[in-house]
């Protein structure tokens, strides 16, 4: 039971050719865990999140996505509207622009309750109660505010309230700390923690913020160039990363010496042969240049590297 992706591919046509933003990803998430999807900017992790919600053009997505036994990729737009918000909700990235600038914060939360069939008064009351649980001391006042009258941290909490409103079974938080300063980042962390207490939903945190992932998540999925390169329980993965890319990411953390990884992610239109990481890999061998490794089970997770197979 849970959310599982089976051979998921997301293709985009660009002027310089077709791009495989998610490349044959097969991975499943358990509802009782918080899973962190980590990787550099452009590793395809946000696209992966949006494809689960069916928010990408249908033609771009191939492969299958299952919510428990239901295949989401087989549903039409109308049925997906029933899934979105109620079963899988999104905390969009960039709180500065992800709220409608000309609607009051309260209205934007109420709307979710209204969609689930609540009357105007009930939606109002539940919005105020939810705002209070999200740590707003004066919910009436917050509900009356427009997004530009709220601070970044408050907007993030309003966005999280929108996602939590319908008590979904999954919440996907897309880059919840991107572009925020340290104080607000800390608030976001608390908010997501709070949201975990609020409901029993599975949490999918898409982030490049390794510290957030380590603090918040039980399980980690590492992505590189649209591929899943390593999965595993968070403590084990941070203590003993197996994929050279994960090792590099963790070594680049500030308190672990801040050693930057050599090289850059290759462009999506010009990917290396064999293992996509080999140009940057300190252990690359002849085989890595020729043959792409498969994601294979290893210990409590899986890893996509010839050395570990």
């Amino acid at each position, binding site marked *: 039971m849970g959310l599982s992706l089976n051979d998921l591919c997301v293709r985009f046509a660009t002027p310089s050719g077709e791009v495989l933003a998610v490349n044959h990803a097969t991975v499943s998430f358990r509802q009782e865990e918080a899973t962190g999807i980590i990787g550099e900017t452009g590793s395809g992790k946000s696209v992966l999140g949006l494809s689960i*919600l069916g928010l990408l053009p249908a033609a771009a997505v191939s492969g299958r996505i299952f919510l428990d036994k239901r295949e989401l990729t087989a549903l039409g737009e109308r049925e997906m509207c029933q899934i*979105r918000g109620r079963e899988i909700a999104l905390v*969009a990235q960039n709180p500065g622009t*992800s*709220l409608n*600038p*000309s609607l009051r914060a309260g209205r934007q939360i109420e709307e979710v309750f209204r969609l689930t069939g609540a009357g105007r008064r009930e939606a109002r009351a539940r919005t105020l109660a939810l705002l209070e649980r999200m740590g707003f001391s004066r919910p009436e006042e917050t509900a009356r505010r427009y997004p*530009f009258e709220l601070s970044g941290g408050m907007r993030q909490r309003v966005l999280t309230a*929108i996602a939590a409103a319908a008590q979904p079974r999954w919440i996907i938080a897309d880059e919840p700390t991107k572009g925020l300063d340290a104080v607000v980042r800390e608030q976001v962390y608390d908010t997501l923690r709070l949201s975990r207490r609020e409901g029993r939903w599975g949490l999918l945190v898409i982030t490049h913020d390794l510290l957030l992932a380590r603090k918040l998540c039980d399980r980690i999925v590492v992505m590189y160039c649209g591929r899943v390169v390593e999965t595993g329980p968070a403590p084990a993965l941070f203590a003993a990363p197996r994929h050279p890319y994960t090792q590099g990411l963790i070594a680049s953390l500030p308190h672990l010496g801040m050693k930057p990884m050599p090289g850059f992610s290759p462009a999506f239109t010009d990917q290396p042969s064999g293992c996509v990481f080999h140009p940057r890999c300190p252990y690359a061998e002849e085989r890595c240049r020729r043959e792409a490794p498969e994601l294979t089970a290893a210990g409590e997770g899986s890893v996509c590297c010839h050395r570990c197979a």
Partner: protein
Amino acid sequence: MGHILRYTGKKLLWTVPILLGITLLAFGLGLAARGDPAVNRASVDPDYVPTREEIQALREALGLTVPAPVQYGRWMAGVLRGDLGRSLMDDKPVLGEMLRLLPNTLILSGMALAVIAAAGIFGGVLLALFHGRFVDAAGRAVLVTVMSVPGFCLAYFLIWLFAQKLRVLPSSGAEGPLHFVLPCLAVSAASACAAARLLRASLLGELGRNYILTARAKGLGRGRLLLRHALRNALPPTVTHIASAFGGLLGGSMITEQIFSVPGIGSYALAAIQNRDYTALRGYVLFTGLVFVLVCLGCDLLCAWLNPQIRLGE
């Protein structure tokens, strides 16, 4: 609340220099134009050739011989008391004549404004709703076609179709509401199409914004997405466009009223131009200027209401 009052007050204050500029322009028009109103008035009877002395006497009687600044001062003193002077041709008060003819023009432009706003918004939302499908492509082709036909051609086409072939609508006069249908369509069609295209483009632009992703992730369908979320943010450019189209309506009423024989202030102004009746013309320019300024003010306030960031002063 205090902010919106300050905002309105500031906008109102700004209309003062604009209106002053309009009076200067309106007055200057008569000075810059060639020809002599006294000659026109003296030659009303085609069989009689006025003498030079008679024309000079008439000029003095009409007050055309005093220096221009004094003329302007006298005219402005009248304007401030609500007196736009008397026609140089027939001595009838300009304001009274315009007020008599005003209802027809107001009905015509008011109806046209309503048609532009309603059809523009409905069309824009419809095209955005069906974006990328047949309705959108066909609709856009129709809009461009209508926009590229000059207004008077459209007017004659409408007369031909509805008054001559189908015989369902009257082609001229202003006796009943039906008489206004054709002139209203003729003046509003192009602006309504432009408004629809503009709104469609801004709606599609809004659909690419981040807050739309949040709204879609709530499970909203495309219709609600457009009407509840995108429309309000997409409207300001279209509202501004409609307001400036209203200015065009006032000026264009001159031609439309002529084609459809509607007695309105457009026809009055046209007669004033032909007779070199500068006092009447000044009155017309001042009046339409004032109406346009008020419409623009209304438009600014509407945009402020649509956008809380302006309304609340951030």
